C-alpha cells in the first residue's frame, strides 16, 4: 500500500498540532502522524507566552487555554530568604492577550486536539510511528508502522515536528550544534490547595534547599510545578522516591502540608539547534530543530512561532505565488530565533549552575548586592521569559529609510492595541493570513494603484479602524501618511513615512522572497 499527500506532519505535540491548525486555516489539508496511541499524560511545558496566545487566537484556541489556565505576569526571585529581584512582564496594559498563561502541556494538547478535530481537514493517525524517512528535491517518503501494519507514504512537503529525538532528523543525517548540561533537575507537579499568589517564584540557595535553586509556579486545577536543582551526581531512582520528594516538599511548606504528587521526572538540559531547518523537502520545527533549557519557557513557545513562520511560506510556495527559496528564509529566520533563544537560555544556565569557584563567587556577589541595591537586581538571572523573536537582518525585510520611534521593530510582530472597527476590538484582528498595508489616514488618502492582492487597512478618522487610545501610534511610532507592510504572520516587513506605489511593490516582492524580481 502506498499513498501520496501534499503535506505530512510527523508528531502531534504542540508544534505539529499548531502547524496543522495553521494549515487548515488556509484550507490546506494535512496528514498528522503520531506514535502515541492517545493524548499524553505527563506535563512538560506549563508557560504559554503572549505571542503563542496571539497565534492560537487566530485558530480559536487562545480563549479555551486562557479559560482553562491561570494568567500571570509577575515573577519574584529570592536569595536565601530575601527578595532579590522582581519583574513584571506586562507593565503597560492594552494587549488582547495576557503576558503568560500557565496550563499543563497535556491539557493544552487536548484543547489543540479539539480544534484539530473540528477543522475537518486534518487526518490525524494515532499509534502510527515513522520508522524510516528520506527526501529528494521533489518529495519525501516515509515508512510508517500503523495499527494495521506497515505502509509507505510520500508527500510533497514533510513537516518534521517529531521532537527532540526526531527520527526524521536522524534519517537525514543531521546533527545539532550546542551544549549539554550536566546538572540534573527534579521536576515535580504536586496538587495542593495553597494561598500563594499566581506568580513565578524562584529561590537561589533557600533555607529549605541549601546551595541549590528551586522554582515554584502555579498551573491549573491546584497543581504546582516545583522544580529542584539537584546537582550533577545524583541517583535518579533515589530522587524520584515519593518519600524523598515528600521530605523536600515538607521542608519547603512545613510538615502539615497536604498534597498529592501528580507527576515526577528528572531532567538534564540541552542547548542545541540544527544549522538549517530545511533539508530538501523536509522542514524541521519545534524540538526536532532546537532544544533549550526550560527556564525561560522558550521551547514550545519558539516551536509555535516556527509553525506560524513556516505555514504561510509553504502555502505561497505550494500555490506558486512565491519561489521555493522562500522556504529557505523560514530556516534563516528561525535559525536566528533558535540561536537567540540558545544564547539567552545558556546565560541563564550559567547563572543558575555556576561551573567553577569563580563563577560561584561572581554569582554570590551579585545576589548579595541585589538583596540591598537596585542596580544589581537586573543582573539576577532565573530565566528570561519567552518573547516574540524580532528577525533582525531578515532577507524578507526592507531596511528602514527613516527612523521610527515606536516599540515595534522591523522583523518583529506588530504589537497589539485596542481599536474600534467592525471586525474586532484589537489591532491584531486586522492583520495576518495575507499581506496587509496598515495606513495612517482616512480611506480616501490611501494612494491609488496599490497591488490588488494587498489588503489595505486605513487607521484613523474616515478609515477602517480607529486608534482609540493612541496605543497604535505609540507602538508603531507612526504619524499621518505612514504605511506599514505586515506579513501573513503579523510580522513587520517594511515601513515608510510616506507611502509610494513603487516602494510598496518592491517591499511586497521582497517579503515574498522575490527580491531579485523586484
Amino acid at each position, binding site marked *: 500500500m502506498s499513498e501520496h499527500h501534499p503535506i505530512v506532519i510527523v508528531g502531534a505535540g504542540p508544534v505539529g498540532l499548531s502547524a496543522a491548525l495553521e494549515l487548515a486555516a488556509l484550507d490546506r489539508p494535512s496528514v498528522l502522524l503520531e506514535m502515541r496511541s492517545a493524548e499524553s499524560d505527563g506535563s512538560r511545558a506549563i508557560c504559554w507566552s503572549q505571542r503563542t496566545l496571539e497565534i492560537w487566537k487566530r485558530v480559536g484556541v487562545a480563549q479555551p487555554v486562557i479559560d482553562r489556565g491561570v494568567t500571570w505576569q509577575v515573577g519574584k526571585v529570592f536569595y536565601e530568604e530575601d527578595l532579590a529581584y522582581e519583574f513584571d512582564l506586562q507593565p503597560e496594559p492594552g494587549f488582547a492577550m495576557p503576558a503568560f498563561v500557565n496550563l499543563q502541556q497535556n491539557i493544552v494538547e487536548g484543547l489543540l486536539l479539539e480544534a484539530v478535530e473540528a477543522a475537518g481537514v486534518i487526518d490525524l493517525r494515532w499509534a502510527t510511528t515513522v520508522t524510516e524517512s528520506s527526501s529528494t528535491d521533489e518529495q519525501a517518503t516515509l515508512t510508517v508502522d500503523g495499527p494495521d501494519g506497515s505502509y509507505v507514504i510520500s508527500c510533497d512537503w514533510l513537516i518534521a515536528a517529531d521532537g527532540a529525538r526526531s527520527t526524521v532528523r536522524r534519517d537525514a543525517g543531521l546533527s545539532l550544534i550546542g551544549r549539554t548540561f550536566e546538572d540534573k533537575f527534579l521536576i515535580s507537579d504536586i496538587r495542593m490547595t495553597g494561598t500563594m499568589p499566581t506568580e513565578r517564584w524562584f529561590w537561589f540557595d533557600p533555607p529549605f534547599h541549601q546551595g541549590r535553586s528551586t522554582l515554584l509556579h502555579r498551573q491549573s486545577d491546584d497543581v504546582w510545578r516545583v522544580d529542584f536543582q539537584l546537582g550533577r551526581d545524583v541517583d535518579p531512582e533515589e530522587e524520584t522516591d515519593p518519600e524523598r520528594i515528600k521530605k523536600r516538599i515538607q521542608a519547603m511548606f512545613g510538615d502539615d502540608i497536604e498534597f498529592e504528587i501528580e507527576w515526577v521526572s528528572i531532567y538534564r538540559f540541552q542547548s542545541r539547534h540544527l544549522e538549517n531547518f530545511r533539508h530538501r523537502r523536509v522542514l524541521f520545527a519545534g524540538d526536532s530543530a532546537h532544544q533549550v533549557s526550560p527556564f525561560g519557557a522558550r521551547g514550545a513557545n519558539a516551536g509555535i512561532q516556527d509553525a506560524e513562520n513556516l505555514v504561510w511560506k509553504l502555502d505561497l510556495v505550494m500555490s506558486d505565488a512565491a519561489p521555493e527559496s522562500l522556504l529557505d528564509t523560514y530556516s534563516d529566520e528561525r535559525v536566528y530565533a533558535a540561536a537567540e533563544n540558545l544564547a539567552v537560555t545558556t546565560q541563564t544556565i550559567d547563572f543558575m549552575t555556576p561551573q567553577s*569557584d*569563580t563563577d*560561584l*563567587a*561572581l554569582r*554570590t*556577589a*551579585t545576589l*548579595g*548586592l541585589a538583596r540591598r541595591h537596585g*542596580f*544589581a537586581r537586573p*543582573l539576577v538571572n532565573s530565566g528570561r521569559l519567552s518573547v516574540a523573536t524580532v528577525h533582525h537582518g531578515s532577507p524578507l525585510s526592507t531596511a528602514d529609510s527613516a527612523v521610527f520611534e515606536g516599540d515595534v521593530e522591523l522583523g518583529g510582530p506588530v504589537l497589539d492595541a485596542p481599536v474600534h472597527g467592525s471586525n474586532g476590538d484589537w489591532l491584531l484582528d486586522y492583520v495576518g493570513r495575507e499581506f496587509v498595508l496598515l495606513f495612517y489616514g482616512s480611506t480616501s488618502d490611501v494612494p491609488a494603484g496599490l497591488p490588488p492582492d494587498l489588503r489595505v487597512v486605513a487607521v484613523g478618522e474616515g478609515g477602517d479602524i480607529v486608534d482609540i487610545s493612541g496605543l497604535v501610534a505609540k507602538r508603531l511610532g507612526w504619524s499621518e501618511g505612514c504605511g506599514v507592510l505586515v506579513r501573513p504572520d503579523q510580522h513587520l516587513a517594511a515601513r515608510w513615512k510616506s507611502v509610494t506605489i513603487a516602494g510598496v511593490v518592491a517591499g511586497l516582492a521582497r517579503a515574498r522572497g522575490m527580491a531579485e524580481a523586484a
Partner: protein
Amino acid sequence: MSVNLDTLAIDDGDAFYEALRVLHDGKTPHESAVLNFRIILLLANQVGDEALQEILRVATASE
C-alpha cells in the same frame, strides 16, 4: 570616553593600596573572590558601559 591609563586619580595611592589589601584579611579565597566581585560590580555600575568595554579590553591585554 577614553579611560585614564596614564595618571593615578586617587590622592593617596599607598593608603588606597593598603585599604584594599586589608579588606581581605582573614578571608578564605572564596570569600575574597566574592568581595572582589562585589567591588567590581559596584565600580562597573559607576563607570557605565562605554568605559567598561575599554577597561575589560585593557585588563585582559595586560596579563
